[in-house]
């Protein structure tokens, strides 16, 4: 398979964007139930870049203190999903989940759990509905809360060293709360190839679907 084959065609790119859109919408309604507020989403933006360029991008894009929830997923396609909050926003999120009445110290002690739980709801919801749409099961690891700068969060795993990486960004915010963040997903080369095939199937299903088509 050549590099060009691994790249997504424009239609596949669109389809993947839609898949993520569906996944994130599902995840958002989960978040909505947790925080009881309106959750606003941006349309996802997706980039497929080489690992080298990815390293450069990460270096450029991330820097300061971040809090992230990370979940790894495996199955027909696999990779890492990260829910990232800029510093400061995470405590607001905790407040939204546990309520405003809890004293600060207690809220802080719950921060870890609340983050992990929120991350789980969002990332799990997103990945599960993507998997569902692609008609392939994926297993998802337990959430892991990370603190650090971008370099730490995106540190390549051993074996990540060549090929392409899928980057995905979605902004989300909760109305009346200062909660903002974004989701990033990293997939390695074999996963991307598998995903490309599944996305192709998905396109065929949508195009032949009678709820949409004739």
């Amino acid at each position, binding site marked *: 398979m050549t590099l060009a084959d691994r790249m997504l065609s424009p239609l596949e790119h669109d389809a993947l964007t839609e898949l993520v859109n*569906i996944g994130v919408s599902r995840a958002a309604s989960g978040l909505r139930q947790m925080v009881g507020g309106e959750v606003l*989403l941006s349309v996802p933006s997706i980039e497929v870049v080489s690992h080298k*360029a990815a390293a450069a991008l990460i270096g450029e*894009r991330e820097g300061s203190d971040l809090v992230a929830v990370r979940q790894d997923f495996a199955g027909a396609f696999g990779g890492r999903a990260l829910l*990232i909050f800029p510093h400061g926003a995470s405590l607001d999120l905790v407040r939204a989940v546990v309520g405003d009445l809890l004293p600060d110290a207690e809220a802080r002690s719950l921060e870890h759990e609340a983050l992990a739980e929120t991350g789980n709801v969002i990332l799990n919801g997103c990945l599960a509905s993507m998997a569902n749409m692609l008609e392939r099961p994926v297993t998802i690891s337990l959430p892991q809360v990370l603190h650090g700068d971008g370099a730490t969060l995106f540190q390549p795993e051993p074996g990540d060293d060549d090929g392409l990486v899928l980057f995905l960004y979605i902004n989300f915010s909760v109305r009346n709360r200062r909660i903002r963040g974004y989701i990033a997903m990293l997939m390695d080369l074999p996963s991307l190839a598998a995903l490309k095939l599944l996305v192709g199937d998905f396109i065929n299903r949508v195009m032949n679907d009678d709820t949409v*088509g004739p």
Partner: protein
Amino acid sequence: MTRSAHRLRAHPVADGLDDQAIAAAWAEAEALGGPMLVALRRSAMAMVLTDPRLPDNPIIDINAAFTELTGYAAAAVRGRNCRLLQGPETDRATVAMLAAALREGRAVRAELLNYRADGSSFWNALSLTPVLDALGEPRFYLGTQTDISGARRIGSVETTLRTQARELDVVRERLRLALSVAGAAAAWEWRIPERLVVGDERFAALYGITEAAAAAGISPAAFFAIIHPDDRARIRLAVGGMLRGAEVFSKSYRVVLADGECRWVQARGRSVNDAAGQPDRFLGALVDITEHKRIEEQLRIAQTAGGIGTFEFTYGFATVAVSRHFCDLLGLHPAAELPVATINGLVCPAHRPVVDPVTRAAAGDVTQREFEIERPDNGERRWLTLRGEYLRDTESADLRLSGVIYDITEAKRREAQLRTLNGTLESEVEARTRERDRLWRLSGDPFLVADQAGRWLAANPAWTEVLGWPAASLVGRTSEWLEHPEDAVSTHAALTRGGGESRFEGRLRTAAGDWRWLSWTAVAEGGLLYCVARDITAEKAQALALAEAEARLRQSQKMEAVGQLTGGLAHDFNNLLTGVTASLEMMRTRIAQGRYDALERYIVAAKDAASRAAALTHRLLAFSRRQTLAPKPVEANRLIGGMEDLVRRTMGPEIEITTRLAPGLWLTLCDPHQLENALLNLCINARDAMPGGGRLTIATDNADLGGATARASGLPAGEYVELSVADTGTGMAPDVAARAFDPFFTTKSLGQGTGLGLSMIYGFVKQSGGQVGLVSRPGAGTKVTLLLPRHQGSGPGEAAPAPPVRLPRARPGETVLVVDDEATIRMLVADALRDRGYAVMEAGDGAAALELLREAAAVDLLVSDVGMPGGLNGRQLADAARALRPGLKVLLITGYAEQAVVGEAALAGGIEVMTKPFALDALGLRIRGMMDGPPG
């Protein structure tokens, strides 16, 4: 002689130009030129000294700034003529002008394109001055060079933008008309379980189907059919996503209309889930953005050419939406979104971050600052300027910072050079009497000698040229009397900073009373200040022009956003307006009652609504003119009378205007604004058809059309009011006349015609139940006739000042249920009704209202908003409520956008409709009337 031949002409090398000879030449030049020449030589202004006594006036010496500017070292240019800086694009006429001045021994200034040693070109502002000897002959020539490329480039961006601004005006007007013809957006509701797409009338028009067919719903396949084949798969996918649970839909794509025309549209939508969380409906709307696409592309080009990067940051988001050029300027990989941390991370310490997520500003605030960054790609340091405006985002109610950045490193570098070149003057400088100082008198650059207190001791004649004051009137005092008040402090600070040399900018008043910007270099020497000034007014003006250009750039970007506005905004706006006016009315009532304590809540409500409305207006711009079509009895003669003055002014003196208005003209029923607009459009067409002048006739008459005549016009027989506009202009060839009513058909050039005038008139007249006729012959003129049905009934009744009405009050026990999701309006309506003695119940949505109706004993009347969230709109609530309580009277309150929803409701007995905004008194009267009327 061709340019290149000219360049290749052999330059006789000035022999014997060794170091000794150069030093001797300088000594002689300084003896003639005085300390001013020394100051110049040391300054950051590029300069060159030539010797006209040697063959071909070769360069004797240059200063360091010249090398910096041109890349030529002294050794490389000594003995050569300055034309070595010229090249293929250098303007010949300018060079000839220089040659002529040099032949006559005159000082001269010019701007011309020059080339550096490395072949790159720059715009050179050149100033040549002869240094005369005791006999008055040019002994040397002094040339100073300034790079003005930046200012030039700004100028060209400015021109591009100006052209675009004009085109934007045209587009804006086109859009306005298009909107008044077609409304803002075609809306659809995709009923997912039923596999049906229901559209409104604009959707019907777009798809070329009848309104009834659109209302009944079309198949998904039909929905996709008009999408351009190249875009169809993409959109099917996106819709597929929506049907499977995605929430947001935002796509632009092409549609192919029935006549084969291809238009770009922007579609936005949202999905609504059923109780089980499954996608149930997919609501969307699309607007035509064909023009925006084009303008967008032009803007992209202009931005790239002007080196301008754009960005937009919504407070709280982790990323900033950026243009490609923004990334280029920062040395980042191109991306549409960049994390805030990334951008701010590039800013050198001690500078404020590019987007500061903490500091908040108010909507409308403008920010401008300069900062230095280190590019991650090559480690280079660059200076950038940021200009931004804080805007209220109507979608998320959050603050956005929308702005541009551009590179100013060149300017900064020059500035820094000026500062660092702080060398002390060598003591060799000899004081010279001004009388002997030839350079002083002949230079085009203003020179000045001042004492340490800043008092001007001597000013050269160039001052008179720059400021218009005779030199004699300038000396003997400080320049305080000339200075711009805002500059006094900075000037003083620069002069007293100490060190041998200071540089500053400031404005001085001319004899004519306006201001010139001057850039100063002052050298302290022997207790005196020797100053050289350069007139930088033009550069300043260009910088200002750039600032304005950017403002317009942003404005035009806003246009794109405005294009995405839908009728919903008008609805919101009317809601808010009602909130304001009703609050004010309530305040008046309370004041009259002396109940001052109750005022606060209305003040708060009004202020809240007003500030939200203000934010909305900002975006609505010209489009806010789109009004609800409100037919009224119209006296056409009076309407024409009211417009005559405007028409006369529009037509110009070459056109004679006659009106023939039939006395006793019948009334007609139509929207008066639209009729005015139609008449005006006809008059403008007539004017355009009579470029050499002619006669315009506006006439009215009563027309009683018998069966045959009526049939010929496609109208039912009956009585009509006839209005006609005739001209003696060019007329139309049959093929033009045949298409004149087509939307966008125009024979006029861009900016002259939109092709929407007649089509709009046609739409309006048909809507009013009439017909348009056109008679035209090439060379003989044109007559357009509007037939509008007669209105039987009383006239508009020239607004006699309303008699102080006794406000109708409730009869005991009468109960009204008020339903509106907009709390302000609900509160105001409820309070107003309570004031009138009604018992009032309130509900925030349809479900709550039905609950109350089930429980409450007596409700006499339901007042409900039409557009409400939560599943039940006003129309549906009315039906449900009347199912519960047959005969319940209902008053629906509607904004523009919901006319379609109300539909036939207005015709059913017992249901009435009132349009927002309305006055509370009018509401009171209406409710009284309904209460007293027959049961529904």
